């Protein structure tokens, strides 16, 4: 009954009186107002912007060549010359950590884009048209769902391993491909159930009654109202993809040297964990911060889009 009381009050409270300013307030702009007040949102956005700039133009942060090994200074502790110290090969850890952002962000963003495009398309088709198409998509997602993302990644990457001469983009592309293949079903499922919730709404029926084409109905009525949960989950997924990429690289089957990546760095650091833990500390710290930033952003966006949390 408590819900009834809040609804009763809310319904009237929401009714505008004549003198109200004619400002455009959509759900998105309400969400934005909510986000603006959330400090977690600003912290995560600041971090994400920082990481993206780092990935795009690492030269802004350091002019040290990440591939310049100074073997005799290997395992040096943090000092004025090398802020984060040097690793076992004598590489500058600060430079390598900065340059390592590129792989993580690239893999995370690309994978998210691909999973969203495939997942949303399949989800909309299954949810809106239903019938055999729905059964087919559902069965396919079930199949992929049974295999965990990480396991799929390990299987694929060890079947088609990289070698020394593999080009950077090919290596990244392979990692993106395998994660996208195993990542889209969750988005598709989410989109499907979201579409199924939106579809029976009378405004969709009204558009049908007006003779609108299916494409028009999907584009202007179904998608805008069904996309919010996908946005939230894919933001969180971005963090997950970065972790999986690091894990694969850590296992030596994702990105491999000479590619610079946080996963590779963590893997390398393990050898000397006891004597020189700083080698492990910095790439792990950056990795954690990046993942945390995306997950926090996802949380903040979810709260903003969920009217019940208001």
């Amino acid at each position, binding site marked *: *009954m*408590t819900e*009834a*009381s*809040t609804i*009763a*009050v*809310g*319904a*009237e*409270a929401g*009714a*505008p*009186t004549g003198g109200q300013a004619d400002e455009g307030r959509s759900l998105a702009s309400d969400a934005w107002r909510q986000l603006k007040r959330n400090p977690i949102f600003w912290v995560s956005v600041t971090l994400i912007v920082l990481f993206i700039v780092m990935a795009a133009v690492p030269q802004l942060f350091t002019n040290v060549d990440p591939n310049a090994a100074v073997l005799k200074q290997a395992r040096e502790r943090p000092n004025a010359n090398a802020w984060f110290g040097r690793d076992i090969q004598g590489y500058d850890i600060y430079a390598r950590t900065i340059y390592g952002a590129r792989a993580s962000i690239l893999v995370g963003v690309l994978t998210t884009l691909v999973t969203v495009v495939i997942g949303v398309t399949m989800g909309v088709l299954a949810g809106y048209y239903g019938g055999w198409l729905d059964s087919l998509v559902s069965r396919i997602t079930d199949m992929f769902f049974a295999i965990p993302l990480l396991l799929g990644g390990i299987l694929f990457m060890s079947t088609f391993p990289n070698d020394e001469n593999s080009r950077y983009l090919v290596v990244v592309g392979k990692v993106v491909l395998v994660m996208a293949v195993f990542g889209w079903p969750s988005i598709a499922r989410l989109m499907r159930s979201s579409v199924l919730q939106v579809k029976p709404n009378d405004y969709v029926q009204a558009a049908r009654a007006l003779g609108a084409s299916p494409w028009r109905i999907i584009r202007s009525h179904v998608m805008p109202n069904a996309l919010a949960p996908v946005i939230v989950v894919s933001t969180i997924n971005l963090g997950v993809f970065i972790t999986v990429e690091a894990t694969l690289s850590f296992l030596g089957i994702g990105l491999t040297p000479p590619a610079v990546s946080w996963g590779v760095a963590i893997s390398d650091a393990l050898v000397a964990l006891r004597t020189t833990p700083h080698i492990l500390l910095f790439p792990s710290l950056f990795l954690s911060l990046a993942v945390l930033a995306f997950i926090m952003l996802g949380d903040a966006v979810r709260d903003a889009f969920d009217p019940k949390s*208001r």
Partner: protein
Amino acid sequence: MTTTETTSRRRAKTATGSEYHPQDGLLLEVEDLHVEFHTADGIAKAINGVDFSLNQGETLAILGESGSGKSVTAQAIMGILDMPPAVIPKGQIRYCGQDLLTMPAEQRRKTRGPEISMVFQDALSSLNPVFPVGWQIAEMFRIHRGMNRSDSLERAVKLMQRVQIPAAKERVKAYPHQFSGGMRQRIMIAMAIALDPAVLIADEPTTALDVTVQAQIMALLQELQEERQMGLILITHDLGVVADVADKIAVMYAGRIVERADVYDLYRQPAHPYTKGLLESIPRLDQKGQQLAAIGGLPPNLMHIPQGCAFNPRCKFAQDVCREDRPTLQLVAPGRESACHFAEEVLNG
């Protein structure tokens, strides 16, 4: 209190004695009740000073539209408002002379069921889907009366028969979804009357039901009320249902009672422009060629209730005084109370 007072008790209670004893049949008094909802967007003043009383065997209808505060009033009496966001800054709710609002929580909890109980609009969501209905009714006896399994179940069957559920014995183990809407509402009523309450609050009990089923449920409620001499508070927006069953009516608008009267008087000659407007705006089944005189405008936003009389922006009688002074509920004729500066004009015009 002692059991020697049983003679003045509302009726003979067999299983347990009640510690509450109405004086001269007076069960419930609500005095200057205020309820606010503190939300992120501001304070919504849901109830702004409500007074009424309820006697044994009496049916009081609280009539109002959504946002008028009628359901919040019911929830405040039951003590089931979520606080926060709800706040009760002021007021008393006295049951048999004792203020429920200042009572210790444990003592108050024990009034829910044996003294005051409630029937909700949505019977499906009020019943737990994973337990058989008989078990849910029997639970009342197990918790409040400490009965054992088989005795309590037997009482549940009797109650189900009392609310006219066909084949009650066989259906006591059935689950809520196996019943129709009307039957589920009967089960809710059975649960509400299980512990023989003195006050029954029915919050829109038939709004979700079809008209033929509505008639059955209202008939049942009236019958039970007469048989047990309960005080019945009927919360509704339906002027037809009220005309059929109520003794007294309180009309609510924007969290205040704007008119209070005997049911016959109120329908014959409303004393508040809002009541008058409502009666003129509803189509009647027994009239042909009727023109509906709609009330213009909208109910007010509870965060910004208009100055003066809350109804003034929609009122045909409104003058400058209505925009400045808020009229209080005053006696305008014997047994008639209205919160309107022009109550006499409304009454006579």
